[in-house]
């Protein structure tokens, strides 16, 4: 009795989340996909390091931090562009995107330097 009620609740929760997510605007969904790509790449690199060891440690850090930095910048872009967010109501989305591009340029410059 209790088990089936729990699973029914889980199913209901999952469905409500899915339908709520379907209601988000398309541009936010694109950003979410991009973030997912970055985090997945980071996880793959960490798993690789766990297998072969951390020999060129600087290269490992550079690779992982490029993924993490990309994800962080994408998250901040999503926050600033989201229309439901009261804090950034007055920020033009173009300005947010320009900041995103400049920060990414700096990030990739540093990554290439540290990659060795």
């Amino acid at each position, binding site marked *: 009795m209790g088990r089936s009620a729990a699973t029914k609740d889980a199913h209901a929760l999952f469905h409500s989340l899915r339908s709520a997510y379907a209601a988000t605007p*398309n*541009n936010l969904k*694109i*950003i979410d996909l*991009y973030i997912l*790509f*970055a985090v997945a*790449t*980071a996880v*793959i*690199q960490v798993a*690789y390091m766990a297998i*072969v060891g951390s*020999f*060129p440690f600087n*290269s*490992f850090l*550079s*690779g*992982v931090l*490029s*993924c993490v930095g*990309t994800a962080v910048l*994408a998250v901040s872009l999503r926050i600033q562009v989201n229309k439901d967010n009261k804090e950034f109501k007055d920020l033009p989305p173009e300005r947010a*995107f320009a900041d995103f*591009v400049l920060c*990414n340029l700096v990030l*990739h410059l540093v*990554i*290439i330097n540290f*990659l*060795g």
Partner: protein
Amino acid sequence: MAAPKFAFLLLNLISILPLLVSSFSVDRPTDRRILVLLDDLSLKSSHSLFFSSLKSRGFDLDFKLADDPAIAVKRYGQYMYDGLILLSPSTERFGGSLDVEGVLDFVDSGHDLIVAADANASDLIRNIAAECGVDFDEDPSAVVVDHSSYAVSETEGDHTLIAADDFIQSDVILGNKKIEAPVLFKGIGHSLNPANSMVLKALSASPSSYSTNPSSKLSSQPPSLYGTAISLVSVVQARNAARIMISGSLDMFSNRLFRAGVQKSGSLNKYEKSGNEQFITELSKWIFHERGHLKAVNLRHNKVGESEEPSMYRINDDLEFSVEIFEWSGSSWVPHVSKDVQVQFYMMSPYVLKTLSTNGKGLYHTSFKVPDVYGVFQFKVEYQKLGYTSLSLSKQIPVRPFKHNEYERFITTAFPYYGASFSMMAGFFIFSGVYLYNK
């Protein structure tokens, strides 16, 4: 007027020259001047074979009575002798300025010593021996008795004259000719501390021997010294290459026992001449550094392909190491040939231990790769072989890790990270395009 004066001066100068060449030096390690202290001047004739064999090998013997007040081994801080022979077992005090401390200082400064004790050995001789690592039997009237390994003779029936043939196995110490006949011995025995690694038994008693007073009844307690724990003649090689021989019998050196025939009880072999002369002569050759004295010169190392010694190596470098070892033959340095000289590349523990190969002319060499650890290392050669002086050489050399530009340009194991970084950049471009032009 001037000519005779000049000739006189020249003659004086020339007479100093022999003094200059006759002293012990690092280049010529054989001793030259030996002080012999005797209890009794009749020993000069009763032990003349021993002394004449020493003189025939070029030694300058200076005979003195043990209580002669003119005895002095040191003058103005310099030692006047290179070796000391104490054939004075019953002397309680030496004359002149010599005492136990003086004898020990003599040995500590690298000079050699032969001590012979006897059945009435004084405390002085026992103390000198004890400081050298040899403990004579505490009972002052005890001698070594052996009822199954004694020398068969018509006169002596208490079995105190024993025939010993348990020699130390070393060609360096006893020469490469085997001593066929047993050695006749009559005197006191001593024991060695097993923890002392520098003292060796040159002539050991047989398992059936024991140390006791032959004229008193056997006590109910077992004797404190018995069996092969008794050493009849011991040698000590100190770390500064000083060599000491301690014998429990003065008669062993005498002409009478040198010339005597010997038959060991229980064996049918009768020898015309005892092994005493050969044993004592060969042992004295070793004691006075005519054999078994090594020197190592020219310890060099360099990178493979270069000839200069660098001041620092890098990890994973290939290097070559070489050292030259010579042995003193009594008159000149000859190459020492051995298969077991090893070199260690040492930092707290040896990272590399290699046996050096020799070219037969005294040059030992090897090559190896510097280990993958950086720090300050030492090349260490520690060579300790029975009967030879010990060699302890070391040379320090630092080892550094790779410099930044000594790695390969693109490291293969890092390719996934390179790929990930570039894929992030590509992803950024594609994302911007898709985001901006998305309707």
